[in-house]
């Protein structure tokens, strides 16, 4: 059976079923032929022979009825019943002729009883003409004896001939039906033989094909399934038998081999991957642990931040109150700055008066200085006089000394004059010193007065400036008051905002706590993952590649 090895499985199956089908077709055609033959013979029998036989038997019945009617007429007295019987006979004659025509139509061409039927028709025609032309007028003319002679003589012979002809046809039909049944039985027996032979041949062919399919398909599949069992046990080192076949089994074997190769490579890679996964999951676990601790720290930090924000909120509340306070203070400051403006204007007036006073003081001091200058000149001339007196006394003393003893008294006078001159010199010196001091003081006063007037001037300017400054200040304070009011409003908004921030922080805190819990779960998951990685590694270790 190796010649089937390279066929496709479809071809093999088609071949096997084709063989069986051929036997089946043979059986079917045989049966069909037999059945059609039987049907045709039955149909022909029914439509031709049986139909014709039926008509003929009816004709016989009407013939008998006519005969009886005619015979009865011979004994009838009543003319009405007689005419009625004549009508009846005529009606029967018409029906008989009709039936004869029908039967002739069906089997007139038949070689076996066509001519016979023609004879019968011609005989009846003759019989009917004689009856109508001779018998019935005799009866009508009450010549019953003549009529009786005619009816019982010639007409009876004709009637017997007619009846024999019909019977002959009946017998021919029956003989042919019997012949047909025998032919059908023969055909059925032949068919039976053919069925038995075909059945045996099909059975043998089926056994042979089963054996061939078993060898061509099931055996290689078993080898492959054994290899698959080995692979299922985790051993990828299995050797596949070489198959050079070109059918699906060969393709399956080669594909299976390639698949095992691929599986081996894939398992190798999975093994390496499992190792990487185990290591990576270990690292992930470590990282996740760190993340978990970080999340806990973050949660703590967020709690602290929340506390801080709460403090900020309180501070904001405080600053809000302060801002309101500042706003009120700024309004007061506006009033105060306005009164300060008035005060500065008044002080400008005061400074003007002080400047006038300072100017008059300066003039007085200038006069005093000039007068002290004159006093100084007077004192200088007095000092000069004293000096001259001193010189005079010295010269007098010199002269006295020159005069010798007589000049002694004059020397004493000169001495006295010298002493007076000294005293007046000292006095003038004292006066000069005092005057110098006075002059210094006056100068200082003049300077002071000038400085004072300058200071007053400066003060005036400063007061004017400060007036402008205070004006500007009051405007600024007004602006500041406005700003403080706005600040108070802003502070209120800020407080609201900080309140919202605090609630948001609270939410963040909760989220952070949940986050920490979630990170714990992630950590657990990472532990599971690490366990899974090691399990996978152990699992893959079982595979031999």
């Amino acid at each position, binding site marked *: 059976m190796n010649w089937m090895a390279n066929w496709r499985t479809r071809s093999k199956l088609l071949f096997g079923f084709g063989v069986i089908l051929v036997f089946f077709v043979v059986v079917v055609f045989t049966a069909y032929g037999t059945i059609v033959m039987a049907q045709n013979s039955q149909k022909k029998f029914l439509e031709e022979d049986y139909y014709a036989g039926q008509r003929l038997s009816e004709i016989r019945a009407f013939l008998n009825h006519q005969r009886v009617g005619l015979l009865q007429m011979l004994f009838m007295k009543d003319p009405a019943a007689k005419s009625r019987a004549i009508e009846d006979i005529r009606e029967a004659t018409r029906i008989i002729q009709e039936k004869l025509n029908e039967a002739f139509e069906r089997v007139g061409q038949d070689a076996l009883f066509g001519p016979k039927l023609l004879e019968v028709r011609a005989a009846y025609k003759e019989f009917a003409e004689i009856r109508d032309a001779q018998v019935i007028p005799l009866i009508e003319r009450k010549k019953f004896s003549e009529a009786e002679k005619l009816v019982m003589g010639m007409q009876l012979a004709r009637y017997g001939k007619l009846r024999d002809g019909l019977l002959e046809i009946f017998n021919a039909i029956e003989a042919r039906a019997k012949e047909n049944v025998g032919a059908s039985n023969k055909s059925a027996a032949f068919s039976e033989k053919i069925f038995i032979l075909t059945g045996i041949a099909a059975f043998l062919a089926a056994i042979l094909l089963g054996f061939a399919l078993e060898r061509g398909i099931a055996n290689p599949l078993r080898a492959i399934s054994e290899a698959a069992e080995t692979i299922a046990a985790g051993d990828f080192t299995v050797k596949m038998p070489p198959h050079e076949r070109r059918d699906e089994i060969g393709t399956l074997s080669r594909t299976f081999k390639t698949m095992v190769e691929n599986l081996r490579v894939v398992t190798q890679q999975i093994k390496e991957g499992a190792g990487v996964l185990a290591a990576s999951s270990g690292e992930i676990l470590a990282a996740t642990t760190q993340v978990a601790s970080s999340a806990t720290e973050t949660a703590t930090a967020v709690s602290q931040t929340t506390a801080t924000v709460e403090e900020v909120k309180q501070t904001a509340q405080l600053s809000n109150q302060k801002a309101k306070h500042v706003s009120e203070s700024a309004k007061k400051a506006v009033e105060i700055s306005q009164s300060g403006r008035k005060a500065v204007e008044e002080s400008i007036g005061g400074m003007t008066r002080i400047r006038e006073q300072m100017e008059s003081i300066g003039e007085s001091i200038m006069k005093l200085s000039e007068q002290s200058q004159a006093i100084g000149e007077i004192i200088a001339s007095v000092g000069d006089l004293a*000096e001259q007196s001193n*010189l005079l006394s*010295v*010269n007098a*003393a*010199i002269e006295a*000394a*020159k005069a010798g003893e007589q000049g002694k008294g004059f020397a004493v006078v000169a001495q006295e004059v*010298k002493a007076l001159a000294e005293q007046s010199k000292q006095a003038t010196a004292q006066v000069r010193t005092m005057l110098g001091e006075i002059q210094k003081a006056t100068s200082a006063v003049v300077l002071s007065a000038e400085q004072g007037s300058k200071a007053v001037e400066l003060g005036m300017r400063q007061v004017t400036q400060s007036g402008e400054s205070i004006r500007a200040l009051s405007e600024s304070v007004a602006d500041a008051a406005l700003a403080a009011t706005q600040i108070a409003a802003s502070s209120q908004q800020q407080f609201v905002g900080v309140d919202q921030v605090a609630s948001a922080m609270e939410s963040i805190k909760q989220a952070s706590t949940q986050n920490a819990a979630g990170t714990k779960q992630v950590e657990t998951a990472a532990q599971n993952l690490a366990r899974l990685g090691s399990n996978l590694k152990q699992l893959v270790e079982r595979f031999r590649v």
Partner: protein
Amino acid sequence: MDDKTKNILKRRAAALARPQVEPRPASEFVETLEFRLGAERFAVETSFVREVYPLKEVTPLPGTPDFILGAMNVRGQVVTINDLARWLELPESARTAGSKVLILRDGEMECGFLADEVVGMRAIACDELEETLPTLTGIRAECLKGVTRDRTVLLDAGKVLASPKLIIGGKQ
């Protein structure tokens, strides 16, 4: 009147009391005119002093030595004014309002000398005078007559006036 007041009055009396001028023999004393020149005190014999005159306008004389300040009008008489400090090679004295001119005379020679201040008459005992310092040389050594105990220098006016430097003529 308490003791304190008494003491004050006594002290004033003591201050105001004039010392008794004791008569001294004429031969033993030299009548001098004492003056100050810078920080030093000098004296000249009154016999050479014509008069003391306040320093007034001095007209500078061109072509004269630097110790001659100029000429001055003294009651219609033209007197040459010398700077004695420069003459004696002392630091130059500042001329002030109190500066005086000593007009010395010896015979025909009459010349004015600038003094910072005239102290007054003083009688110097001859035995009080000491010889001039040996360290002094030149003009100072020539013009000095002696030094008193209180370091007043007695100038020899005669020598000063006789000094040829004062004669200004065609030679110089």
